[in-house]
């Protein structure tokens, strides 16, 4: 179940090396595979040096925003006498994204090791790993791995005998996409509604429990041990020409490809190769219609845009979208793009936290207009209305959930207008199953 595909020569397995290898799950198995040497190495280094290594590796946040990880760590106050926290964001909820789940399922100790190194680097004694509530299996595996890590002395009052305290607490979410937003996640750990907070203050100044906090994605943290053992130069060298996008990235591919799954690629791999070579291309008789390349919150790409797109942070932006979390939703020519966009807006309307007006009311209204269009009752002015609402919903709220709802609508209408017009003028309808 969820079994990884056989390794494809186009992949560069770093994080995914042991996906499908149950032996890697235990502490002993992880040590056999070279695990915890990076942590031992890091604990012997001053924290600032660890930060420097990560900085020079070019590692960028793998959760969606792509912020340089080492730089983020360097924002933490130094020797300020207050407790610091590391938070690992394992609330992977972005539709189309399912990479962190695999990391936790197959290599829990990779994440624990990454968390421990990062904790040391930022001066945190405690790390919270926030795992979304639906991830029952990763939760179980991580729970066992953390217990094991304490039992063998990797964690606790003297991590690996270093005299340095490092604790990891697993915290389970309970069904709220927005908790993947870093400040909402902090509120959630604090036992509150998962409402995003206003920034400033930024987490490094006042984060979890009002204390200096760094929050990193699972994939980001899991990459850190490799950078420590193999060196920043090695990691920076994993790039196909763009010095700003280095290393490997797990790309979750889903939808209409022959072999959906997680593919670890060197950043810079052409998107076309990823879809048509690594993932086996479209189903027989089908052609590519559209790709949402970075989780559902980013603009849709059409075939022309996919054609020349290089899969790294800047490349996807140049093509008209964003790499985001690296969750790629591939749609072939059988797709009713209007319905799929509608289904995404329903997702956002369901997940809106209710704080900001534009998001709370705008997501629901967008859904209702799309429903009307799908029922064949749309008006000629509806597309302009949707675009205007999208404008009013973009760049005006505390977090970007509202923008995320608007992005597929705007790009969908821009790039697939004929599909919408088929509903408005050609009498097309679509059943609205479910609720």
């Amino acid at each position, binding site marked *: 179940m969820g079994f990884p595909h056989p390794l494809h020569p186009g992949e560069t397995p770093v994080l995914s090396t042991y996906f499908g290898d149950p032996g890697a799950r235990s502490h002993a198995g992880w040590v056999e595979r070279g695990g915890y040497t990076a942590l031992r190495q890091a604990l012997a280094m001053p924290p600032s040096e660890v930060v420097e290594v990560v900085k020079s590796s070019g590692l960028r946040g793998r959760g969606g925003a792509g912020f340089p990880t080492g730089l983020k760590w360097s924002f933490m106050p130094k020797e300020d006498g207050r407790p610091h926290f590391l938070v690992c964001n394992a609330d992977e909820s972005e539709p189309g994204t399912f990479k962190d789940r695999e990391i936790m399922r197959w290599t829990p100790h990779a994440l624990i090791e990454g968390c421990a190194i990062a904790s040391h680097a930022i001066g945190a004694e405690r790390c919270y790993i926030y795992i979304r509530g639906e991830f029952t*299996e990763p939760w179980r595996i991580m729970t066992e791995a953390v217990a094991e890590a304490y039992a063998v002395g990797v964690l606790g009052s003297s991590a690996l005998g270093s005299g340095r305290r490092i604790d990891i607490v697993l915290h389970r*979410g309970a069904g709220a996409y927005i908790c993947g937003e870093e400040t909402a996640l902090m509120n959630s750990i604090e036992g509150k509604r998962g409402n995003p907070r206003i920034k400033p203050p930024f987490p490094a100044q006042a984060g979890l429990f009002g204390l200096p906090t760094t929050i990193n994605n699972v994939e980001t943290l899991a990459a850190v041990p490799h950078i420590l053992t193999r060196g920043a130069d090695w990691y920076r060298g994993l790039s196909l020409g763009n010095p700003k996008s280095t290393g490997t990235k797990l790309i979750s591919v889903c*939808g209409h490809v022959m072999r959906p799954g997680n593919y670890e690629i060197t950043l810079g791999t052409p998107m076309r190769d990823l879809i048509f070579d690594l993932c086996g291309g479209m189903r027989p008789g089908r052609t590519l219609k559209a790709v949402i390349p970075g989780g559902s919150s980013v603009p849709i790409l059409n075939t022309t845009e996919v054609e020349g797109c290089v899969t790294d942070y800047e490349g996807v932006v140049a093509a008209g979208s964003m790499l985001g979390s690296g969750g790629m939703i591939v749609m072939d020519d059988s797709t009713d793009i209007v*319905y799929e966009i509608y289904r995404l807006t329903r*997702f956002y309307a369901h997940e809106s936290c209710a704080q900001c007006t534009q998001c709370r009311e705008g997501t629901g209204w967008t859904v209702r207009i799309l429903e009307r269009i799908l029922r064949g009752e749309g008006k000629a002015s509806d597309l302009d209305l949707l675009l205007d609402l999208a404008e009013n919903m973009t760049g005006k709220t505390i977090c970007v959930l509202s923008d995320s709802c608007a992005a597929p609508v705007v790009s969908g209408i821009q790039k697939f207008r004929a599909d919408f017009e088929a509903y408005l003028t050609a009498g097309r309808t679509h059943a609205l199953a479910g609720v």
Partner: protein
Amino acid sequence: MSAAHATEAGTHSPVFTGDTLARLEALYDSYPTRQACLLPALWMIQEARGWISPESIAEVATVLGLTPAHVRGVVTFYTMYHQHPMGRHVIQVCTTSPCHLNGSADVVGALLKETGCGELGATSPDGRFTVVEVECLGACGFATPMLIDDDFIESVTPERVAGLLQGYE
């Protein structure tokens, strides 16, 4: 909701006693505030009772030194906390776009038919299942995923549904 209040009113037996209380208290050191133990505590209630009743809200508020209003605001924010009694087994099936592209609508249809629930959110007449539609379960490459209680099942097809339900009585 009010009917459910009525049935349990006055007959609430506390969740946080004995082992469950000990498990909760064991978490206190993991957080600087008691409030931070709220989500874990709510999970314990749901584990014990299958849903989170107003009486349980009042109880957990007292145990953690919070107000019932705060707890209620939290319970209603997170969709995995059930505010109503559910069937003996809760099936959560994903229907968000990536799964919809791969036929989740048919999986939902098969689930509603096989369980006898008839509609989403409803409990089957025998009280065995409640089927709810959920947003993205984070296994989009293995569409369609579903959770039966805590069992995460991937690549569900309409044909597999009947077999998968066996064993959940």
